[in-house]
Every structure is written in structure tokens, then in C-alpha cells.
């Protein structure tokens, strides 16, 4: 799907926009996913049951691997020995580690196949790919955090943060998987590779694991738990208000796509605003008028 950034009206507005083309299936899906709960508040269904289940399994696998892995790295340490004795010794720890690794491998294979299907069969625009706009958003966000501007970026389905976590973790898991296999099956690996790859695999596996643990258990947990608890990956739902704050571009897309449902001509062209509707100012009273207490989210 082509995506262009063009100014709507060069003389009257400096607001850049994105053009998207909506097909019938996506319009109907958007319509279905915009719901209203019993108490009247609008919400969006962002994640299907399957996705939520897979994320939960991923969480379990990564936590298990991290725990059993750290216990093995720090075996000489007092803390490591406590962890190992909890797990029942090194042999059992290694077996648990392998078991979780197999689970993670299964999840990874499923995810790869699912993504390929999404991309080629359902012809959907891959939401997680890094685009130039993400780097722009990153810099703008940091400038905003430093208080040097009042302009906040508007995020699509996945912000640069979520994409960064996704790619660091995914590539990390790939590296960990490969180096893990080398260490787990040294005889088979040395059938066609020199034996020195095994110590290399050991070093890389250990450091990559620490990196993934930092990204997931420090940054990702800060992002979804500490600054503002976000349970949408488990419930699948996000309130419209939260969507407006955190993923306004996606919300605009969903609403415009839902509005286009029932149209006779497909695809329908819609425009999404890359800047806030009012231009550059952020209302200082926003945080007072909104029902959530946290300031602008990303």
C-alpha cells in the first residue's frame, strides 16, 4: 500500500498528512472493532484472542528463560546459587531452560508464518516495520521531553518505542536461538563448522541474553507498567480516550475506515493528520479535562 506524505493545502495549513487506502475488509473490521461498553464509554478492540494468548505464552517463555538463564550465568554468586537450589540444581535448570526454549521456538515459527500470511495472503500493511517517521518521532519525542517544544508526535498502531522493543527482542531471540542451538548440540554443529564456534556462541548468547533482559524487564516494563499500567495486551481493549492520547493516528484511521464501510467504491482514500488537529499548541488544561490523570501518552 503506498503511503505518501503531502500537505493538504500549502497556503492555509502547514500540517502534513498521510494518505491511506482502505479496502472493504479492513473497513468492516474497523467498524466491528469500534465498540461501546455498557456504561457508554467507547473502546477499541486492538488485539484478537489469539494474539493475546501468544503474547501471554511469550511472556511466560521469556520469563522462564531469563530466570533459568541468569541462574546459570551467575552460578558462582550467592544469588545465583539460591536460584539454582530453588530450581533443583543445574541439570534441572538446564532442562527447564531447554523446555522454554522449545516453546519460544514454536511461538517464533508461528509468528513468522502468521506474519508472512498477513503480508502476502491478506495483503496487509505490516505495522511493525521501522519507517523514517519512527526516527522522526523519536527525535521529536526527546526534544519534547527536554521541554524544548510543545509539539508531540502522533503515533500510529505501534509507536517507535514498541517497534524498538519488538525488533530488539525479535532479533535477540533469533541470535539467542542460534547460539543456544550451537551450545546444545555441539557434536552436530561441529560436523560442518569449526569447533571454535562453540565458545563464540557461549559469549554471544550470554551477552545477548542480558541485553534482551534489559530491554524487556527494564524498558518494556517501564513502558507498559510503571509509567501507566496498560493491560490492553491482555484484555485486548483500549478506551477511546487512551487511544486518542497514545495512538491517535490509529484511532483516526479506524474511525475514518469505519465511516467508509458500506461505500460502493473500493479502495477508499483517507487522509490522516500527522500533527495535532489544532496545529502546534498543546492545551495545558487537557490533563484537567481528561478523565485519566496521566499526562500525554505515547
Amino acid at each position: 500500500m503506498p503511503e505518501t506524505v503531502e500537505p493538504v493545502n500549502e497556503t492555509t495549513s502547514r500540517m502534513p498528512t498521510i494518505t491511506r487506502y482502505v479496502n472493504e475488509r479492513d473497513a468492516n473490521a474497523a467498524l466491528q472493532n469500534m465498540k461501546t461498553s455498557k456504561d457508554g464509554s467507547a473502546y477499541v478492540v486492538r488485539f484478537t484472542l489469539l494474539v493475546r494468548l501468544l503474547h501471554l505464552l511469550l511472556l511466560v517463555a521469556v520469563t522462564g528463560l531469563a530466570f533459568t538463564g541468569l541462574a546459570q550465568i551467575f552460578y558462582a554468586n550467592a544469588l545465583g546459587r539460591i536460584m539454582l537450589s530453588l530450581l533443583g540444581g543445574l541439570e534441572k535448570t538446564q532442562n527447564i531452560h531447554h523446555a522454554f526454549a522449545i516453546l519460544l521456538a514454536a511461538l517464533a515459527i508461528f509468528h513468522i508464518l502468521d506474519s508472512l500470511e498477513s503480508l502476502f495472503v491478506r495483503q496487509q500493511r505490516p505495522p511493525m516495520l521501522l519507517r523514517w517517521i519512527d526516527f522522526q518521532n523519536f527525535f521529536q519525542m526527546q526534544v519534547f521531553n527536554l521541554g524544548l517544544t510543545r509539539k508531540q508526535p502522533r503515533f500510529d498502531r505501534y509507536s517507535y518505542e514498541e517497534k524498538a522493543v519488538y525488533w530488539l527482542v525479535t532479533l535477540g531471540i533469533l541470535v539467542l536461538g542460534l547460539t543456544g542451538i550451537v551450545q546444545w548440540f555441539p557434536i552436530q554443529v561441529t560436523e560442518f563448522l569449526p569447533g571454535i564456534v562453540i565458545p563464540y556462541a557461549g559469549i554471544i548468547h550470554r551477552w545477548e541474553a542480558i541485553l534482551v533482559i534489559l530491554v524487556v524487564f527494564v524498558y518494556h516494563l517501564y513502558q507498559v507498567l510503571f509509567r501507566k499500567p496498560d493491560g490492553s495486551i491482555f484484555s485486548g481493549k483500549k478506551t477511546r480516550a487512551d487511544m486518542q492520547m497514545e495512538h491517535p493516528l490509529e484511532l483516526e484511521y479506524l474511525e475514518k475506515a469505519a465511516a467508509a464501510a458500506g461505500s460502493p467504491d473500493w479502495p477508499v482514500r483517507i487522509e490522516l493528520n500527522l500533527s495535532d488537529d489544532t496545529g502546534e499548541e498543546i492545551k495545558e488544561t487537557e490533563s484537567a479535562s481528561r478523565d485519566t490523570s496521566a499526562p500525554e501518552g505515547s
Partner: protein
Amino acid sequence: MTKPTLNHARNTLVLFATGLFILLLGATSIRTYAKSMNVDPTPTPEITQSSAPATTLQTNPHEDGECLDCHGNPALTGLTMDGETISLYIQPAAHQESFHSREGGGCNKFCHQAQATYPHETSTAESCAVCHWQVSGQAPVDGKLVFKLPYVDARAITLEVNTSCKKCHVEIFESTTDSAHTRIMLEGNRYAPLCSDCHSGHDISLVTRQGVSDVCKKCHLAEYTTYKGSVHGAALEADSNPDVPTCAGCHGSHLVSGPGTTDFRTATVKICGDCHSDKTIMDKYGISTDVLSTYMDDAHGLTDFFRKTNLENITRATCFDCHGKHNILSPDNPSSKVYPENLQSTCQQCHDDANIRFPQSWLSHKKIDSGANPGLSWTNQISLFIVVAAAVIILALIILDARRRIALKVKAGRNNGK
């Protein structure tokens, strides 16, 4: 008042009776005490060995405790019930120089209680007849004075005498109860080593370092021969090197755990590691002290670490699996199991299908940051740098984000208050 008068006659009688009573009491006590000491209360005149030959064999002039009267005679021989002939001659000097004689013990005080009295369980006439053959007419056989012994064989005597060691050497005896040597004895092997097999019977002394090999090789000759050719054994033989382990150094002396047990495999890491991680010893020979830590960090050693904490019982490779047991040689020696060209077959002891590339994964006990493999140490350094940089970036981003949120919250709070 009348003056009391002394009845002289009565008093004298009483005094006399009392005296007699005391005398009888005393004599009886002394006699009883003397009898308990196995000493004839009636003193006999001194008779030296070669003086006054016996003319009659009915009275016994030899005192109990004068063992060397007979056992100092080189011709004294015993005949066991199995028909085995053993010498009963004891060299006086041998016992004199041992630890025990310094303690002032007689032969029968600690060890030979069965032979405490003379004659030893045979009639007077029989005992005397053998030595005093001129009187009895029993000629010596082949120049030897042969006594029939009430023992099945020589080993039976040893077994009996060795029960007395534990009376004084309590702790050492208790430490042997779990020993492999005790175990094979209990399984029925009468020739399993006892105290006197290693420490000798009469000239008892501490076993020297070189002496350890001499003692153990009596039964373990094959292992000794191999050990003699090894790097440890050769050094011990050459100049009694104080740094190398003797048989007892690895296997223990009194508590000898069998080498096939899992306990021994576990203990090996400490047995080898204690010396091989000690810089003061290893520097003399140019041997790296990284061997223990690199083994522990490696797949082989990780499990051993936990065997020490009794968490589980696994038989992964321990020191001697790769380096050999009695045939330990320097890794530079082409016959060594860990000579680079020999490594594949060593690895194949456990990794059946290891190919020629497999041993390349072993870094020869060199630490990664030692620079022995620059690629590895470089990778390690770069990875460390990347992870630290990532941690710093993550922290910075979190701080920036959190700061802004908190600032805005504070601002909103102030706005709400207005």
C-alpha cells in the same frame, strides 16, 4: 572418785590379736594384688638365658613379660594349623626404635594380650620341651625350634593382633570404618590391609612420602608402575618432591574411598584443585592456576560445583577423565591424553561421535580475556560495551520520559488547584 585401773593382761592380748589380724589382712591384700599383677608373690632367683640349663621340665623359671627370653632366639619358629611355618624371632632393635617402645609398653601390654602369660595356652612340659630339647629329647627340625600354634595361618595372628590398635588410636580407627579397605575386609578378603600391613608390626613408624608408594605397591603394583612413569610419580622418585601427591595424597591413607565412587569423582576437583590453583606451588613449574576456574566455568565443571552443595549427583567429566589417573603427563608430552592431537580420542570417551573439529571448542583452560584467542576476547569486549551502552541509553530515555511526566503532573496539579 576411784581411779580407773588398766588391765594389763587383757590389753596385751587385745594388742597382740589386733596385730595378728592386721598382719593377716595385709598379707592377704598383698597376695591378692600381687596375683592380679601376674607376679608370683614369692620372689624367685634371677636366671639368665644361657646359664643354668634346665635339668627338669617341671618348674617354670621364666617370668611373664620376659618375651625376648625365647623370642630373641633366631631359631624360634611356629607351625600353624594349616602347616605354614613362620618365624617367631623378633629383632630387639626393631621394637626399640619404634614409637611404641618409647611409650614403655611391653609386648603383652597393648598388642599381644593373648600371649600375656607364659606359657601361652600350652602345658608347661610341651613349651619347655621344644627349647630345652637336650632335656626333653625332642631334637630341633632343620635347626629350628618349632612350636605348634593354635592359629589357622599367619594371617589369623595378624588379624587378632590388629584388634588392639584401636584401643589407643581411636579416631584413626573410626576413620577407617568407611574405608574401601575395610569394606573389602568385611566382604571376606582376609588379606585386606590392616594397620600392621602398612605400618609394619614391630618397627612401627610413620610412613614417609616415599614409603607410601612402597607400602601401597604391595597390593597395587600395576597402579604403582604406571604412577612411577607419570609426572607426579617421577618427581617423587627422583627427588622426593614435596609438592606432588603420593598415593595417599589423592586416595587418602586411613579413609580410602574407592576411586570408582561418585564421592571420589566429586572430591577429585578439590583434590586436584587445591594444589593446581595455588600460585605458590604452581609458579615453580610454570603451570597456570586458571585451570580450576576455567573448568568450573565450563560445561563440564558447572555441574561439579553443585555436587559440592549436594544438590544432585551427576557424572560429568572430572579432572582425571581427561588427564588420566595414574598416567598423568604434561600436556606437552605426546603420550599425554590431553596432548592436542590426542584430544579427540579423549573427548570420545564420553562424546562417542565427536569428530576432529569438536576438540577445537576446548580452550585448554585458558580464560577468554587472557588473550589466547584474540577473536574471543574481542567479541567479549565488544559485547560488554554494547550491553553497557544499551543500559545507559535505556536509563537515559527512561529518565527523560519520567521527568517530563512528573513535571507535567505537577503542573496539572497546580492548575487544578487554581
